[in-house]
């Protein structure tokens, strides 16, 4: 947990879920700056009491379609450095593509089910709050499915693609090593290969990871 408590705003129209989230996050030592049920309320809450990260349900009143997504894009444009964790019952590839269109930093897109694994969820939220990425494995699967025909990634070996997929979820090298049951050194080698093969410039490592993920998503 971070030394200074992270500040979280929640927009979720289901009262049961909203209360549950507040309970869970308070329990984990987060500060809740606002817990609201519709887009306009979040907009003013964020303006008055800026959080580090906003958890936003995609389907909200009035039309229950993609209000949350549009709100997320709007808040990102207005408040620099605000982390956004979109929260949804379903994964829509198009939404993910819209959201990640120019920058995957400080973006998360998770299925609501993920809150059941409290630690993973809290970890993902923290990652997004400090400018990282957290994509649901489901999102990644769908994106890989959607991009199978493209040959941008065909230069990668299957193992490298696995590593890239986990990177896209926002995992660290350590977490990737754990997930694939290989050494951290092996992961570093794969990551370096991915950078080379995808022709990514040598620069700040974190930024390169984000670029690799974007390349992966764009392809």
């Amino acid at each position, binding site marked *: 947990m971070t030394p200074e408590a992270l500040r979280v705003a929640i927009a979720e129209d289901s009262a*049961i879920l909203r*209360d549950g989230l507040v309970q869970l996050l308070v329990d984990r030592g987060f500060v809740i700056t606002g817990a609201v049920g519709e887009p306009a309320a979040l907009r003013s809450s964020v303006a008055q009491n800026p959080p580090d990260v906003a958890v936003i349900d995609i389907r909200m009143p009035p039309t229950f379609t993609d209000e949350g997504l549009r709100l997320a894009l709007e808040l990102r444009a207005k408040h620099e450095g605000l982390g956004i964790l979109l929260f949804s019952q379903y994964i829509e590839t198009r939404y993910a593509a819209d959201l990640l269109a120019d920058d995957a930093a400080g973006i998360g897109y998770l299925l609501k089910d993920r809150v059941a694994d409290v630690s993973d969820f809290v970890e993902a939220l923290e990652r997004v709050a400090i400018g990282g990425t957290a994509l649901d494995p489901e999102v990644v699967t769908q994106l890989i499915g959607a991009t199978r025909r493209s040959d941008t990634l065909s230069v990668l070996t299957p193992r490298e693609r696995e590593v890239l997929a986990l990177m896209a979820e926002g995992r660290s090298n350590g977490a990737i090593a754990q997930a694939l049951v290989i050494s951290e050194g092996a992961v570093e080698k794969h990551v370096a290969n991915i950078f080379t093969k995808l022709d990514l410039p040598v620069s700040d490592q974190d930024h390169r990871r984000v670029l690799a993920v974007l390349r992966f998503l764009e392809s």
Partner: protein
Amino acid sequence: MTLVTEDGEAPAHPEDEPKHKTVSLGVTDEQVIKVKELARRVLREPFTRRPWSELAFWMVSGVLAAVSLVIVAATMIAGIWLIITFVGLIIIALSLRIARGIGRFQRGLAHNFLGETVEEPNPFVRRPGFFGWLQSALRDRVAWRSVAYLALKLPWTLLGLYVAFSLWWDAFVGLLNPIFWHGDGNSGPMWGLLQNIFLPNRITGGDASFGHTFGLFVLGLLAFFAAPWVMRGFVTVDRLLIRTLLGPDPVAARVRSLEQARTTTVDASAATLRRIERDLHDGTQAQLVALAMRLGMAKEKLDDTDHVDLERVRELVDEAHRGAKEAITELRDIARGIHPPALDIGLEGALATLASRSAVPSELNFDVRDRPTAAIEAIAYFCVAELLANVAQHAHASRVSVSCAQSGSWLRLVVRDDGHGGAHLSTVGSSASGLAGLTERVHAVDGRLDLVSPPGGPTVVTVDLPLSA
């Protein structure tokens, strides 16, 4: 003053007898009034606008019908001649397109001259591509009906022109005859129908006597007052032709209404699916996610080896338990919304269940001999469920009665409450699941829903459904 006679009875007054009995030749006042009325009408008719516009219509539409029948017949015959070369088909198609236009024009004439408003037939639906056009044009029932109209109209018009128009001519010649009687044996042309019948040339031939002229004048007068009615007879038949052949095709109208009903049904079922999805999404799914979250939190608390906060874990498990029970209830409600299990035991049992669950005390009368089809039973069930819910929510009623009775091949549901009334179709159910939604469902099976709800009550909703649909 009343004098009492010897035998104590009031004297009889002959004046007290009803007068009309004795008035003229056994005809009652009413009959006299009727005859006068008729005579007035006959005498006035030639001076009203109507017979003249009918005459104008007859001439204009007659000329037009002659010209258009010539065009249509000529192109048709040419088309049939050339049919072997395929160009024939195109010519016939073009001819039909023209016929449709002529039909529209004739309808317009009837509207302008006769005030006969005939509904527009179905518009021409053109399929894509040249062959699509050809096929649609050749199969255009409206156009074929226009052709039939023209074919019937022309002989009728000619007959009308001869009979009715010549009556007008008789009137014209006869009435003007005294003025133009020069006494030179040439009293004007003898073209009229009546003259030919009553004053054939061989009898009157060239005779310009006073008797002859006077005879002509009387005949002209007769013709003048008879002509409007004869003309009207011809026009009435033409109106009938226009209505049946140039109006909407009854078969097509039925098809259109069925298409509308089908669209409503499809929309309604899409709306139902969407509502179920929404219910699942907002209710059960959210409930289950919250439940899993609480259990996840409880699990983590138990894993905390240093200090297990049993109190908190118990709270979380309690909440999860409550959530699970709520999710089960919600799921049951949603399932019941899709297909009420109560219907499996029949409509009567299902309605009895609904009535017993009603928040407002209710009674049910059920008198149905033949079992309706499953779809009708479901609609009847949802109607009663929705109406009872409305009564509970809006009516402030103390009693509600539900009756479900069969009359012939129809099922009639009546829900009556003693509440404060003032319900409207638009206000009672604004959402798709409300009364408006019910009305749509009922219309989709050709049923009816009537709402009578005067301010102060009572509110009576009557739903008629066919037994099978």
